[in-house]
């Protein structure tokens, strides 16, 4: 029962991307939109568009009933959630199933399992995937803490068991500092929460963020190799690459095999991403979470493997088996994606909604621009600041960086402020060129290199 009519429960660039994939499969598209999004590109491109509520996402893109009613009214047989919004909301997925509709993604139980940090960690351990080492339970005795810390290795993070929001977290570099800091953490936790017990967790210093793209059909699973997304600001990725510049071939195989084993073990259906922290100094990697949806940065994987991941996940949701086997999937060259946001990098990333007065972008075979812009379009202030993603492909990483620099120089978005000046500065940076980055690198760079961003 292949999908005939697909409702897109999202907005912005990903809605445009999903419509393109659906059209390539001959599927009719229904785009839902809020009152603030009447003029967005996906509304114009879809075969049908239905307004589902006011600007506020809570009343529109997060409104389960409005979306399911729209799907029924339009005669849609499936709903694609994109990323964000309802893409990992198990209650919504259950409601979609109860309404007799297909959700493009895994079922509610799987989303719940992988969405819960503790359950996901246990599932990963059961599949033999390394997780960030930590104490099994809460500790309240100092000698016990020292014994556990020796097992997991330093540095260790001391976290109050009853705490939350990062309060009372301390990092001990060795046994002496653990013996000094743990009692402080304990005393603070007693006075703040009435419970002095704490957890210990290994700290991956200068961690790199590496993730594996996976796809499953419930019976079998494949990986499409890894992406590296170490350039982040406030945990938001802004520059993503495939493959990772830092992995050797043996580690790459080990990492990708661990992700595909986890995916197969849980009977995963659809597109997913298994995220890891990679410790460059030791070559170790640790599972952090699995995202049960298509991700913003999926195009770099498409660029190096040649597969359309969004089309594949739609086919699988319609009941088809995986169309590809592991041996068919090869890495060709190197790809980079940057996120162009409506923010002013020279004014603390102040959001900049408004009218796009001119738009011109690079047209070259190695360049792809996934966006939802057109001249005269007003970017509304109600949603996130992502305007689009510029993706380039090169024979190797150096060529890809050069192509990205050129593509950014050839892209003009006027009328609003964008992060293009920051991205150009990064494309010219020697440490970026050398691949010497980690998840804390960009925030440190921004503190010392703001003059390198030319407006």
């Amino acid at each position, binding site marked *: 029962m292949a999908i005939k009519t697909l409702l897109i429960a999202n907005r912005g660039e990903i809605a445009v991307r999903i419509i393109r994939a659906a059209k390539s499969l001959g599927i009719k598209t229904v785009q839902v939109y809020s009152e603030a999004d009447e003029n967005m590109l996906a509304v114009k491109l879809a075969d049908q568009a239905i307004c589902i509520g006011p600007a506020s996402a809570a009343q529109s893109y997060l409104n389960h009933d409005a979306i399911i009613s729209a799907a029924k009214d339009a005669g849609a047989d499936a709903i694609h959630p994109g990323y964000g919004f309802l893409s990992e909301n198990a209650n919504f997925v259950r409601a979609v199933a109860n309404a007799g509709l297909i959700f493009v993604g895994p079922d509610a139980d799987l989303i719940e399992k992988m969405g819960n940090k503790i359950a996901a960690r246990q599932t990963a351990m059961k599949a033999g995937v390394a997780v960030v080492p930590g104490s099994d339970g809460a500790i309240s005795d100092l000698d016990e803490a020292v014994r556990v810390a020796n097992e997991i290795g330093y540095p260790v993070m001391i976290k109050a068991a009853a705490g939350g929001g990062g309060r009372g977290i301390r990092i001990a570099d060795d046994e002496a500092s653990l013996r000094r800091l743990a009692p402080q953490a304990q005393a603070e936790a007693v006075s703040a929460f009435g419970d002095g017990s704490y957890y210990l967790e290994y700290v991956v210093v200068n961690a790199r963020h590496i993730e594996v793209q996976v796809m499953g059909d419930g019976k079998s699973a494949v990986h499409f190799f890894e992406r590296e997304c170490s350039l982040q600001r406030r945990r938001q990725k802004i520059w993503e690459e495939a493959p990772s510049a830092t992995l050797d071939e043996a580690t790459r195989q080990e990492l990708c095999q661990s992700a595909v084993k986890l995916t197969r073990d849980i009977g995963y259906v659809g597109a997913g991403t298994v995220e890891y922290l990679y410790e460059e100094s030791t070559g170790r990697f640790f599972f952090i979470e699995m995202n049960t949806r298509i991700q913003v940065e999926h195009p770099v994987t498409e660029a190096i493997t040649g597969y359309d991941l969004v089309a594949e996940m739609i086919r699988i949701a319609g009941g088809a088996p995986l169309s590809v086997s592991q041996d068919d999937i090869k890495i060709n060259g190197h790809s980079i994606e940057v996120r162009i946001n*409506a923010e002013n990098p020279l004014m603390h990333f*102040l*959001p900049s*909604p408004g009218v796009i007065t001119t738009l011109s972008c690079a047209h070259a075979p190695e360049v792809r621009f996934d966006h939802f812009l057109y001249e005269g379009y007003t970017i509304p*202030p*109600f*949603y*996130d600041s992502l305007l689009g993603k510029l993706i380039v492909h090169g024979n190797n990483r150096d060529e890809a960086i050069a192509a990205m620099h050129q593509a950014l120089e050839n892209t003009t978005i006027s009328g609003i402020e964008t992060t293009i000046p920051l991205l150009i500065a990064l494309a010219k940076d020697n440490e970026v060129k050398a691949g010497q980055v980690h998840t804390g690198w960009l925030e440190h760079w921004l503190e010392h290199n703001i003059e390198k961003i030319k407006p």
Partner: protein
Amino acid sequence: MTDIQSPLPGTFYLTPSPGEPAYKSKGDTVSEGDVIGLIEVMKTFIEVKATDAGTFDSYVVENEQPVQAGQVIAKLS
């Protein structure tokens, strides 16, 4: 009467967080720079500050109402 305008487009909030009282109510003394509300723009919250001193009269938009840049959101007397 002095108007206080929103510096940016977005969603206006009268209260620091849900369930709390509004930043200002009628008759409150307002000093220049006092926070009188929040604007949520692209998932970022920005404080709206009084550009003049005076006595608070009223909000002229509702909590969680979409506003335009330059739109009057409150009045001082």
